[in-house]
Structures are given as structure tokens and as C-alpha cells.
């Protein structure tokens, strides 16, 4: 590889505004009615369905598909949202190829599963778009629960608590609620501001007071929340990006992928985002894929995604890897970074591999090697995450937790939603003083 003539080459508008807009269109366009009916017909309505068992939120998938078949789309949406209030977002972002669709018995029959994700979107979109309220709140309990975090775990917990009759105050660190749905997910997976539309739908149940720009540990302390509320739920995610711990990490042009993705998601005009001509992404997960693909969409000419282990250990699904490759991302395996090169601005990254050291030139380097929880010491922790019981209670009385910040968090929206739901059910049981079990 020849060294580029001028480095660093980092600038916005590498492609025209129209080209970039087109690149960020819906990854999987929604199904029309005929397509949905035909696809729904493919469902075998399995007994004790493997797809449902594979869904972290346990949506009764054959039943919701059956309702699509009979044109009972609202009933279908209710089946989905009753188990997973973020069924709309999950329909867009779930790695269905390793969840419900991997379990589909059609794989055995013809190696082509039912398109469960797209059908789920078909059933939920009309509800979220029209805002029709499917849920009624139980009689007021007189209890108030503090939910920390406005992401999938927190909002799922808040919604279920509201349905169960409790009042909820959500303390949200960011300017807008939604968490990673708003700031983390690749833009082409959730177009047209869907994350906010979904949040509005969730909040329309009533009884949920969202306070934005309130960060735990800075603007409000855990102890105050415990004292002022009947229960506290923490859905705070993993707020601190991991460091590589190698030379050159603080050079200009070395960026945490999650920070860049958040900025990109919020950018009205994505062509204003400066991107390098040559981009190196370090990591092997979904975030690494997302930043690599979006770098290409912004016009980066060469994008390298470098992972320290083999393809089987990558947490990005095979579908995501293929998506990156067909978008023009070169994926390199078994190459841990050795040092980042450059004086003020990054010029390249040196890697170690079985074949010896090699250098990839770079105008920008994205770190996508995971995040960790930000500064908690009062909880029982394991592997840097909060330990919870089956009901998502923590080691601290009156405090529950769920989502990425707990042991068992999987960095998936759907898992966070399930945690929030389970915690809400347990909080409700506890507040009502029902005996365990």
C-alpha cells in the first residue's frame, strides 16, 4: 500500500448530499400488505415454537403471524407489544438471524426462515405511527418508582410499571430519551426518527415523567433517589468506552466509535460529518460493523475493520459481517493493534499478526472494543457489570437493574427490554407486598 500523498485527509461531503442520503435509507424496506400475507402464510404455526423460545422477550411469534394472516393487524401488534413494548425497534435492529429466524423450522425444510423481523415491523408500525393506545393502566398504586436511564431497559421498565398502576420518574442523562436507540443504532436501521416516535408511543400510556439532561452521580445521587422513591431501577448502560491501552491512542483522529455514531445519528444533514479518506476500525462487534459501514456510506474510500481474534469469535453476526463486506469494508482477522502512528494526527496503525507486523495507513481510527459501566462501586459486581437476581434485584435494597449494565446484558435492545419488563414485574410484586414466587 502506498502512503497517501496528503495526510490527514478528513473532511465532510466526500459524497454529494443526495448520495449520502440515499446511502442512509432503510436497510430493510418494510413489507407491503401482499408481501406480508404471503410471508405470513409460510409460518407453520409450530407447537411450542422454537422462534418464541429464541426470542429474549418471549413474543408468541406464531400467534402474531397468524393474526397478520387474518388481517387482524392491530391484534398482531398487541401480541408483540404486550411482551416487548419496543417491538417496533426490535423488528428493525434485532439480529434475527441468530435469534427467532435462526430457530425457524423452515431452515430445516428449505434453508429460508420466515421473515419474522419484517412481519413484526408490518404489525407494529401502524400502531406506533397512529399512536393507537393498546394498554390501559391499572388502578393507581400510590407508589412512585425512579428509573435511571432513558434507554430500552429504562423505558421498558417504566412502561410496564405505568401499566401496573405505578407512577414513574425517568432520569435521563441525554438531551432526548431513547438511549442507544436514539444515539447508538446505525442510522440506516432506524430511519425517519423512529426512535423518538416509539418513545412518544411508550410515554403516551401516561404516568411517566421524563427528566432529560440529568446524569446519575453528577446531577442526582443514587442515595437521594432511594430515599425519595418506593423503588429505583437502573438502566444506565455502559457509559465509558474501553481504551486500547497502546501508544498513540490520544492522537487527533482517534475516535470512540460510539461517540461518532451518536453525533452521526443526531446530524440533520449527514454530509456535514467529517470522515477520513482511509478509515481503520478496531473491533469485531456490532458497533465496529456499524461504524465501518457508515464510514463507507459517508464516502470513506477505504475502510478496514481489524479484529484481534478469528471470525468465529466475532460478536457481529454473519449477516452483519456480510453486510459490511458487501458495503466494501475489508475485514482483517487475528491482528491485535500494536501502536497508533502519527505526530499530532493519526497516520496509521501498526498491527501484529501471525505473519509479522503490518501497518494500515489511516486518516481516522475508530475504537470499537466495547464499553464499561461508569464508576460504580457500591454494588456487587461481576466482570464489570452489576449482579442481579432472577427478578433483577441488585445487592442494594430497593434497587433493581437491567440492560447492558448488568450481568447477562447482551448489548441487544431486545435483552434490555426484557430486563426492564422483568424488573417492573418484580418491583410491582415487591411494592404490593405479595409473597415471593
Amino acid at each position: 500500500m502506498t502512503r497517501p500523498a496528503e495526510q490527514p485527509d478528513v473532511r465532510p461531503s466526500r459524497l454529494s448530499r443526495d448520495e449520502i442520503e440515499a446511502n442512509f435509507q432503510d436497510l430493510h424496506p418494510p413489507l407491503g400488505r401482499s408481501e406480508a400475507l404471503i410471508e405470513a402464510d409460510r409460518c407453520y404455526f409450530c407447537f411450542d415454537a422454537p422462534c418464541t423460545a429464541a426470542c429474549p422477550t418471549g413474543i408468541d411469534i406464531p400467534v402474531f403471524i397468524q393474526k397478520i394472516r387474518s388481517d387482524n393487524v392491530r391484534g398482531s401488534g398487541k401480541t408483540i407489544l404486550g411482551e416487548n413494548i419496543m417491538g417496533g425497534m426490535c423488528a428493525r435492529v434485532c439480529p434475527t438471524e441468530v435469534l427467532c429466524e435462526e430457530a425457524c423450522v423452515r431452515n430445516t425444510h428449505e434453508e429460508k426462515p420466515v421473515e419474522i423481523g419484517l412481519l413484526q415491523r408490518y404489525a407494529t408500525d401502524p400502531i406506533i405511527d397512529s399512536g393507537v393506545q393498546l394498554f390501559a393502566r391499572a388502578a393507581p398504586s400510590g407508589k412512585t418508582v425512579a428509573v435511571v436511564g432513558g434507554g430500552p431497559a429504562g423505558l421498558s421498565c417504566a412502561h410496564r410499571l405505568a401499566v401496573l398502576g405505578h407512577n414513574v420518574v425517568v432520569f435521563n442523562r441525554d438531551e432526548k430519551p431513547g438511549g442507544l436507540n436514539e444515539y447508538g443504532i446505525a442510522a440506516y436501521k432506524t430511519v425517519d426518527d423512529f426512535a423518538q416516535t416509539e418513545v412518544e408511543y411508550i410515554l403516551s400510556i401516561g404516568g411517566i415523567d421524563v427528566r432529560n439532561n440529568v446524569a446519575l452521580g453528577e446531577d442526582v445521587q443514587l442515595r437521594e433517589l432511594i430515599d425519595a422513591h418506593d423503588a429505583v431501577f437502573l438502566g444506565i448502560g455502559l457509559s465509558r468506552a474501553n481504551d486500547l491501552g497502546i501508544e498513540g491512542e490520544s492522537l487527533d483522529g482517534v475516535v470512540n466509535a460510539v461517540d461518532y455514531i451518536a453525533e452521526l445519528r443526531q446530524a440533520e444533514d449527514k454530509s456535514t460529518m467529517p470522515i477520513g479518506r482511509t478509515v481503520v476500525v478496531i473491533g469485531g462487534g456490532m458497533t465496529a460493523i456499524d461504524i465501518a459501514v457508515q464510514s463507507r456510506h459517508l464516502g470513506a474510500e477505504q475502510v478496514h475493520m481489524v479484529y484481534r481474534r478469528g471470525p468465529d469469535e466475532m460478536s457481529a453476526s454473519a449477516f452483519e459481517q456480510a453486510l459490511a463486506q458487501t458495503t466494501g469494508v475489508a475485514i482483517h482477522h487475528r491482528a491485535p493493534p500494536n501502536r497508533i502512528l502519527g505526530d499530532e494526527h493519526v497516520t496509521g496503525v501498526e498491527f501484529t499478526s501471525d505473519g509479522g507486523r503490518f501497518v494500515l495507513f489511516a486518516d481516522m481510527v475508530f475504537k470499537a472494543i466495547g464499553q464499561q459501566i461508569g464508576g460504580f462501586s457500591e454494588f456487587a459486581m461481576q466482570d464489570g457489570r452489576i449482579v442481579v437476581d432472577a427478578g433483577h434485584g441488585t445487592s442494594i435494597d430497593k434497587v433493581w437493574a437491567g440492560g447492558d449494565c448488568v450481568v447477562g446484558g447482551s448489548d441487544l435492545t431486545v435483552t434490555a427490554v426484557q430486563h426492564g419488563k422483568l424488573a417492573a414485574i418484580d418491583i410491582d410484586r415487591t411494592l404490593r407486598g405479595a409473597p415471593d414466587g
Partner: protein
Amino acid sequence: MADLRTSFLGIESPNPFWLASAPPTDKAYNVNRAFEAGWGGAVWKTLGESGPPIVNVSGPRYGALHSNERRVIGFNNIELITDRPLETNLEEIRQVKRDWPDRALVASVMLPMNEAAWSKYLPMIEDTGCDGFELNFGCPHGMSERGMGAAVGQVPEYIQMATEWAKQATSLPVIVKLTPNVTNIVPPAKAALDGGADAVSLINTINSIMRVDYDSLTMYPTTDGMGTHGGYCGEAVKPIALNMVAEIARNADTAKLPVSGIGGITDWRDAVDFLALGASNVQICTAAMVYGFRIIDDLVDGLGTFLDDKGMTLAELVGKAVPSVTDWQYLNLNYVEKAVIDQDLCIECGRCHVVCEDTSHQAITSMVDGKRRFEVIDDACVGCNLCVSVCPVDGCITMRQVSDDDADKLNWTQHPNNPMRTTD
């Protein structure tokens, strides 16, 4: 490929597939297209008396029962007999027969219940050169309200009377088309035979309402807000038609009566069903109306290939399955089958389990040694065939005989539980 040439009542056709009397045979234009596509014959859309033409509704005439993929499974219509002048039809029949001498061309007729009409019109129609007549005693809507069609077909005495008039009025073969809107098909068939009919054709369409309109909550389809029952046909009616054909074929009084089989034939296998159960040829309408005339390719090719594979002639196929049809009371109650699930083919959908568990005999497992696995519990299985019917994988669940071939046979007429049993 096997020779499919057919002689039905002496009417020759290159294959046993005729278009039934219906919209596809209303005009020379359509029939010419059908013959170009390879159809063996056609029964011209039913002719009535001359005079003021028949008037059809100008709204929907057809309604369909769809699968989710919008495949037409069932179909109905409220169209009447031909609404074109008799003279026009006669002229076109004459021309088509002249242009296609090797194809069967039969005239369907519907006339009032007076002998004069039959003696007037049949010779006039015969003069076109057509090969025979089919008497429409089957249409269940409209014309039946005027004392024709099914109104005749539901009264055996009328069938016999009109058939006699027809036979007196023409020397050509006469086929009587029967309505299925009766409780027992044998008396009408017997009446046709007694009236001198050369053959019967069946079934005509079944009284039907397709559905309700979910917005207006009226029946659907309607004409200016009102609807009427139509005649049901298409794939969904085939089992009803097959039973009626077989009943005629296995009844001693009617067994010798040639049958032209009609009812939901869509591909060559449907034709095999009718032929094996006693029909000598078949007539088709709905499949052509749903897919167009080119379905004839598969019908001819599929039947020919099938006969080749079986090493049979078409004539040998006709009636082949009739001896296997009997009354329930003669079924061997000592014969035992049980289901077997091929684990290599099983995709583990569990449908067999849940239907057996919920609605039948709790004879299929869902777990074996803590693993999802579907196996037949022989002791509980009564061999009902439900699991075979619902399994989405063809050939995965089959029935296996478990009783001995040389075990004594025992039917209900001999069964000890039957107080009316015959004793030696």
C-alpha cells in the same frame, strides 16, 4: 407418450380434456383459442330458446375463495346461460366445427319443460354439425327460478321426461348434466338413464354464498347492495364431485352409464382422480378461467407421462379405483395401521403433536429424554391419519400396517358389537 385419443359416446377427441359449458365456451373467439392451445373438445355455453336474449347483471358475476397468496381455491358465479342471440351461436358453432373437425364440439341446451321446445330447437342445433348435446339440468341460480336448470335436475321425473323429449328430437348422443344440489345423486342419474341418456356429466355448481363484506356487512359480492347465491366450483369442490361420480360408477343401476367428470380439475392428477373413479373423460372450466387455456399443456403431458409410468392405457385407467369404493360397513375392522414419523425428515414444527394432543388421541410425544422430539406412541395411536394430514413435510409421516395380512377380516355386518350382525 401414451395415446390420449378418446371416443366418448363415439365423439372423438385428441385428448379427454373438454372445456365445460361455461364462459370460456361462449364464443367462437374463445373456443378457437382453446383449440389452438390444444384442448380436446368443448361443450358450448348453454343455448336457450330464440327470442329476446338473456339479460345478465352488469355488476360482479364471480366471487372467489382465496388462499393468502391469493390463489383461487373456490369460485362461484351468477352468470346465466348465453346472453347472445341463438342464431349467432349456431353460426359460430357451425364454423368452429368446420374449422376443427378433429375436436369434440357438444352443444349445451336448456329449454322449458314442454316437448315442443325440444322438438323445435334440437334439430336446429344439430344442423350446425355439432357432435352431441348436453342437457343443462344443473344451473342453480337464475334459470332455476324460471323452472329450468337445477329446478329440473332436482326432480328425477322431470329429468327423465326432458331426456326422453331430447332423445326423440335428435339422433346425436345426449349427455345429461346433473346438479349436485341433491341429497343422493343416484336417482337423478338413474332417471337420465331411464330417459335414454347416453351419458351423464357431473357435477354442475353448488349453491353457495362466498362471504360477507366486512365493511358493509352485506353478503359479498352484491348487485346494488343485494346478492344471491351462486354456483360454487373450483378446486374446493373436487371431493364432492368425486364422491358423486363414484356413487354412480359403483351403483349397479347406473354403473354402465358413461360419465363425463367435472368439478375442480386443475392439474392432471385431478383428472386421474375422476378417470380412476369412473369418468371416461373430464370437463374443465374454473382452472381455465383462473389461469387461461395454456394449462392444457400440463394436463395432457402430465396424464400421458403418468400412463407411461404406469404402463397403462387411458381406457385401463377409467374406473380402475371404483372397486376400492364401498360402504363403511364393509371396511375390515381387524385391519390396523399406525403412524410413523421419519426423524430424518422431521423439521420439529410439532404440529402433529399439538393436534393429536388437543383434538385426538394424545399419541405423539413432544419431548423425549428432555429433548424436543416427536414420536408416535404406538399404544395410543388409532391410525387416524390426522398427523399425516397436517404435517407440512410431504412423506415425513406415513401410515404403516401393523395387523397381519393373513388375519381374519371382520366388518361391521359381522362384528359382535353389532346387534344386527349377519350370522352364519
